[in-house]
């Protein structure tokens, strides 16, 4: 879509965002460090509790709940955010983006490329941001329809269940191999990294921890698998609500050629959507419920997002830039509708250049 702001207005908008960013950067300190260390401690308590409760078969559901919560916290509020470099300023190797390796089958090194660089730089740019539908789904009207997409809802369901595996295979760009623009050779270097990580994760969750519970091996194994599943479902839903509900826009490569910093900020706001909720919900989503703030400032500590959200929203409203937000159930319903609607070919041919027609009614 074409920006409704002039280049000068975009520059002014960018300057306000830069100023906000600088203010937060200058203010980073003990509170932020204490926060992330507190989250790590809480996550470790939950993990130890979960792993220990597997020794008590009647407490199995509790064990799975604690371990699931621990895995969600670790992937979303710790792993994702630490690997964004949000805490690099602390100089602590444990919380350094170049060192931290999260509890997920996707190797951190590869994730940082596809997520930090590709997805965060080319957010919602069709043909560049491979997070649009993950190369499997049709998530935008501008993706040409093909009978393959009749399975859209089924693929989405499968991706949800096997989300961490989807993320791990994301970098292999399978869709580009099918298309013939990428060869198996290109993937050779990635295979070793993925297999090493998969072996490590499987060793931990499906061999060592079950073995430590002796005769309860099968129960623990199923419990660990369930916790991974819960984490997959949760992460998938939070992430899909971050970019695909009605209101979140996509862009073409031409629109983003030689873009200014202001336009980049503008694109981040329009390409993302927030989820409203309470403090616990925000923590459990790794503050990705503030997807707009995260995309504007991916390297600021996530706990700052709720703090600056009102100001970001105020600035956006002043420039007439749509700030999409809504409660989880509404955003989920919106995403689900979109997944199903886009499984079918577009009903009416798109009027050329008519952005209003593309913009859905909800949100």
């Amino acid at each position, binding site marked *: 879509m074409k920006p409704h702001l002039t280049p000068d207005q975009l520059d002014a908008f960018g300057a306000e965002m830069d100023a906000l960013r600088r203010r937060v950067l200058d203010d980073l300190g003990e509170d932020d460090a204490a926060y992330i260390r507190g989250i790590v401690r809480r996550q470790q308590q939950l993990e130890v509790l979960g792993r220990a409760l597997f020794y008590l078969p009647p407490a199995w559901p509790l064990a799975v709940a604690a371990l699931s919560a621990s895995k969600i916290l670790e992937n979303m509020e710790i792993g994702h955010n630490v690997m964004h470099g949000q805490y690099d300023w*602390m100089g602590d190797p*444990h919380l350094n983006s170049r060192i931290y*390796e999260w509890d997920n089958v996707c190797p951190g090194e590869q994730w940082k490329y596809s997520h*930090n660089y590709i997805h965060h730089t080319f957010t919602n740019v069709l043909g560049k941001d491979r997070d649009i539908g993950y190369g499997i789904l049709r998530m935008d009207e501008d993706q040409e329809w093909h009978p393959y997409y009749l399975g859209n809802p089924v693929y989405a369901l499968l991706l949800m269940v096997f989300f961490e595996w989807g993320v791990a295979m994301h970098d292999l760009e399978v869709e580009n191999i099918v298309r013939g623009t990428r060869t198996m050779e290109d993937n050779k270097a990635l295979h070793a990294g993925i297999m090493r990580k998969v072996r490590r994760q499987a060793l931990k969750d499906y061999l060592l921890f079950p073995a430590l519970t002796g005769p309860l091996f099968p129960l623990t194994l199923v419990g660990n698998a369930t916790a991974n599943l819960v984490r997959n479902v949760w992460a998938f839903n939070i992430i899909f609500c971050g970019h695909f509900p009605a209101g979140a826009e996509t862009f073409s490569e031409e629109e983003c050629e030689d873009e200014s910093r202001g336009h980049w900020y503008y694109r981040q706001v329009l390409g993302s959507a927030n989820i409203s909720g309470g403090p616990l919900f925000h923590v459990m989503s790794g503050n990705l419920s503030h997807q707009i703030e995260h995309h504007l400032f*991916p390297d600021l500590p996530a706990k700052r997002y709720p703090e600056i959200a009102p100001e970001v929203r105020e600035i956006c409203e002043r420039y007439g830039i749509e700030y999409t937000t809504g409660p989880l159930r509404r955003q989920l319903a919106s995403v689900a509708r979109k997944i199903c609607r886009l499984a079918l070919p577009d009903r009416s041919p798109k009027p050329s250049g008519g952005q209003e027609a593309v913009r859905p009614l909800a949100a």
Partner: protein
Amino acid sequence: MVVLDRLVRSRTAAALTSPHGVDHYLSRINPMWAAHEVRARVVDVRRETDTPGAPVATLTLRPTATWRGHRAGQYVQVGLDLPGSARRMTRCFSISSPASGAGEEIALTVRAHADGQVSKHLVDAAPGLLLHLSQAEGSFTLPVSPATPGIDPLLFITGGSGITPAMSMLRTLLRDGYDGRAGRPVTFLHHARSPEDQIYAAELARIAEDDNDVTVHLRHGDARFSELELRRLAPGFRDTDTWACGPAGMMELVRAAYGDSPRLRLEHFKPPATATGSAEGDLRFARSDRRVANSGASIFEQAEDAGLSPVFGCRMGICFSCTTRKAEGTVRNVLSGAESSLPDEDIQICVSAPAGDCVVDL
């Protein structure tokens, strides 16, 4: 103990404790327990000099059992959690105590620089302070075994705090040599700003007096070593194994005097640089051994212009793909305008421009 040790270092333990690692959990129980990392407790702090503005202190450190020991002349990276800022600062310090074995105590002699946050804090540290260490690093070491007598003379030329690695070597020679002797002729030349600023004054006086094969020459203030004096005090110095460490002026003099002699070994220390302007100075790419005149552009662009291909991503300071170690010099963040002069600092080269001379690991 051995079994336990093997266990905590095993891949099984690493898998079970991922993603945080064994050390993280061990340090939760006791900060001095470690499987891989090295930490150390400060057990003693002794003032060496009370020079106004730049006092010097020797800190005795008791490391975790993971410390593998050091060869005389090596340095160690010291990480200090600065109180009040939540930032861990890491700096390199030469070890001044004689060569150590695994888990043995070591000593660092530190001068407080006016704008050195870490050094100032260390000099005024109280026993009990916990530090994060690397293993010993550096090849500015003594290759001869101190326990075997030889006839090859050794020469040390040091200035100011540059005395610390040489002192570690001298102490090692005297500790391990037969009957308290160095076992070969040793000449020890040192320059300090003033007699009051002389580190290890009493110990050096004792070494000079003892019958131990060591000759000590100290100079203070304006009485600096010249090439002429070097010839007089250490005849044939160009053919003598020499270790030199000191301020830039002294190092230049030594380098000139030695020409291309392979016997000279130099160790530089890196105080925080001061900015000299926006597009002045040289940008040096240490790993590829290239040097370009600073154009004022980002380090990333200048590296590309020099024909290097650094790893990159967004090129706008958000993705951290291009993070590179800056060894020395000042850089300005082109987004925030903030300048940073810390040595051995990780910077995002796509949004950092050099301000004056700068060395990066590319």
